[in-house]
């Protein structure tokens, strides 16, 4: 008999299931709108030119393969902090922050979660928006924290339930942890407006909550890295010392290279040093030190003026293509004769769109039109191209008219 006889089969990943079914489908018009990775207008993965150039520079330098420090590549972490906080940020200039390299967004979130479990004794509760990225819950749970929720998405309007959010947040017990999506909320694509962010900052301050920002789409949402980081920077300016997780998976297309960063804004540089020392104690028994490749590519791009400029153009290009697909989808739906209000498709931002489609409608899309998405009606706009947006609009109209 085996040690593992009692081990249950883990439930299949809902999103992977979508991709598996998509792969099996032989319909030439099939569309995979589950994919959480950018595709170009030909539906292909896109390796950024600035990434290729950075890689060429690396190849010519003939660097060694020595271990990185536990906290990662210093040029990368410093540039990451500056990218998020802004070069004029008082917190950045005074050095009252610590940024460590993390394994993309997930790894960075997990470091923060572990750190909170060990050092944040005021609360075990992490408040997530309803809904949130599916992996947030198990990450915090595995770190030993508890999950709560605040209202966020209004399915009736397919937009932000701002009064519901404010109501719930104003009742969160003091010194709890609240997670906020910095931009391009996943999975809804619904972001607060700047005026709403200001009110959120005020109530969060009033309740003395610990703010943890997840920023996986800086630059990728609006096309403007400063605009996408506005909420994070505003909160810090208001004296809220946030935690922040960054990912370069989407905005630099570095998915499989796992480039990310975790930041803690501290009272002063001395506190930042103490916090850093404890983060290293957490990281060492997880994977010792982080992988170089993605961080080096990102660092070269951020720190080489020409490449940085090129990156900003390319990330805007990706964001613009997504925005253009949203616009085209709505106009095509109108052309199909749909009488529904599809404004939320263009109001929402980032890679994902909560269409408002019901499970039965999603099922019809899949069965009758070979269009694959998750049951909650979420589509990855990155999977839409000028070649298939008409087909998509037609199909959606058929199942909603």
């Amino acid at each position, binding site marked *: 008999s085996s040690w593992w006889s009692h081990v249950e089969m883990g439930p299949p990943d809902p999103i992977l299931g979508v991709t598996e079914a998509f792969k099996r489908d032989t319909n030439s018009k099939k569309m995979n709108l589950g994919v959480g990775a950018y595709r170009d207008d030909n539906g292909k993965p896109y390796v950024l030119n600035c990434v290729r150039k950075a890689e060429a520079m690396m190849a010519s330098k003939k660097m060694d393969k020595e271990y990185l420090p536990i906290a990662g590549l210093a040029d990368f972490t410093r540039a990451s902090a500056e990218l998020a906080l802004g070069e004029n940020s008082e917190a950045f200039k005074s050095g009252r922050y610590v940024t460590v390299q993390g394994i993309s967004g997930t790894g960075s979130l997990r470091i923060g979660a572990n750190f909170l479990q060990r050092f944040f004794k005021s609360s075990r509760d992490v408040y997530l928006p309803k809904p949130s990225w599916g992996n947030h819950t198990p990450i915090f749970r595995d770190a030993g924290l508890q999950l709560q929720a605040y209202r966020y998405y209004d399915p009736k309007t397919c937009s932000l339930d701002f009064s519901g959010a404010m109501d719930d947040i104003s009742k969160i017990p003091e010194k709890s942890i609240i997670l906020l999506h910095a931009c391009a909320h996943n999975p809804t694509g619904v972001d607060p407006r700047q005026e709403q962010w200001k009110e959120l900052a005020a109530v969060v301050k009033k309740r003395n909550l610990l703010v943890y920002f997840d920023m996986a789409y800086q630059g990728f949402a609006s096309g403007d890295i400063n605009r996408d980081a506005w909420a994070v920077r505003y909160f810090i300016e208001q004296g809220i010392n946030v935690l922040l997780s960054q990912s370069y998976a989407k905005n630099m297309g570095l998915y*499989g290279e796992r480039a990310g960063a975790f930041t803690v804004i501290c009272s002063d540089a001395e506190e930042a040093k103490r916090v850093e020392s404890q983060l290293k104690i957490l990281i060492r028994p997880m994977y010792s030190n982080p992988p170089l490749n993605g961080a080096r590519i990102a660092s070269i791009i951020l720190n080489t003026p020409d490449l940085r400029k090129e990156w900003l153009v390319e990330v805007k290009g990706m964001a613009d293509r997504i925005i253009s697909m949203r616009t085209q989808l709505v106009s095509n739906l109108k052309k199909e004769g749909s009488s529904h209000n599809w404004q939320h498709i263009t109001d929402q931002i980032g890679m994902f769109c909560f269409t408002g489609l019901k499970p039965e409608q999603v099922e019809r899309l899949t069965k009758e039109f070979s269009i694959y998405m998750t049951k909650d009606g979420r589509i990855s706009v990155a999977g839409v191209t000028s070649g298939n947006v008409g087909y998509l609009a037609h199909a959606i109209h058929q199942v909603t008219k």
Partner: protein
Amino acid sequence: MAASIFTAVPCAPPVAVFKLTADFREDGDARKVNLGVGAYRTDEGQPWVLPVVKKVEQMIANDNSLNHEYLPILGLPAFRANASRIALGDDSPAIKENRVGSVQSLGGTGALRIGAEFLRRWYNGNNNTATPVYISVPSWENHNSVFVDAGFKDIRTYHYWDTTKRGLDLKGLLDDMEKAPEFSIFILHACAHNPTGTDPTPDQWKQIAAVMKRRFLFPFFDSAYQGFASGSLDKDAWAVRYFVSEGFELFLAQSFSKNFGLYNERVGNLTVVGKDADNVQRVLSQMEKIVRTTWSNPPSQGARIVATTLSSPQLFAEWYDNVKTMADRVLLMRSELRSRLESLGTPGTWNHITEQIGMFSFTGLNPKQVEYMIKEKHIYLLASGRINMSGLTTKNLDYVAKSIHEAVTKIQ
């Protein structure tokens, strides 16, 4: 400003081995030698990117069909299969019987951590926080932290190093295994024990396996030096393969940091050997859940390099050659250091220098003597007396030997 939630966060002590390197870097003495951190160095004292790695990286760079898309959660399939195959052998019955699973991990550390997290959740019923985990004394210092952070509350030690005879304390080891509660987990070094460089002989491994089988003890092997230790992949994997042939279910954490010189790309693999395919499938499905909340999916670059190398007979042969180059240089430094100490008439016996295997040697220097080496001679080694053999070069051998001689004769 309001008091910070982090006001009470104490400053943590630095990790010893990294602090040592930091101190070494700051030392301005021209004679300085770094015998601390475990990375291979050439005879010029330089890091060495394996020629086969350079070649394969160029191939990867020139391949425009490659992109940076996510790997599957469990990693690159070609890497996983080849990594486990290297450890278990081409003709492994376990592989033939389809009862081997693999989880690409971030270095050996990552593999240990994923394995530990799984065991805490699923070994021997659920919730194993109270299951004893046994770690050798001494061992790599991070072993303890990995299992503590994975949630195990009862971490124990087993006898390993006999300080007096400077060798394996087999009797103490077997005794600890006899006394360990059934179903305890034992962390075993597959070869080139870190830090002692002292491995059980095949015969001794057989005795260890017999006790473990009889007492239902779980073997969790740590293999960070396959090929690097003796120069032979098969020889360095003998213990693991023997356990598999004896019918054990086991975990094996593999690192490709040293034998591929891919330290900073974090290339590792957790090999799972189970009773049958069905068990292994279920185990892997739960491993996915653990990986998903730790790093989601592993980094691609290092895995591509290893997979490409191991799946090409030509490149594999080149790699094997590179590995042997490293192993041979270490063996040479061992014999050269020993012969110098014996010529100098340094008090004590020094055969352990050549009898030990792998990157490290437990010199037998005590903390005071180590302090002398660092402060007076600018030779950096761990307080335990562990030296990294590849920190030795033909240029510094004489200086190091003389310094050891001084330390041993001047300091008691």
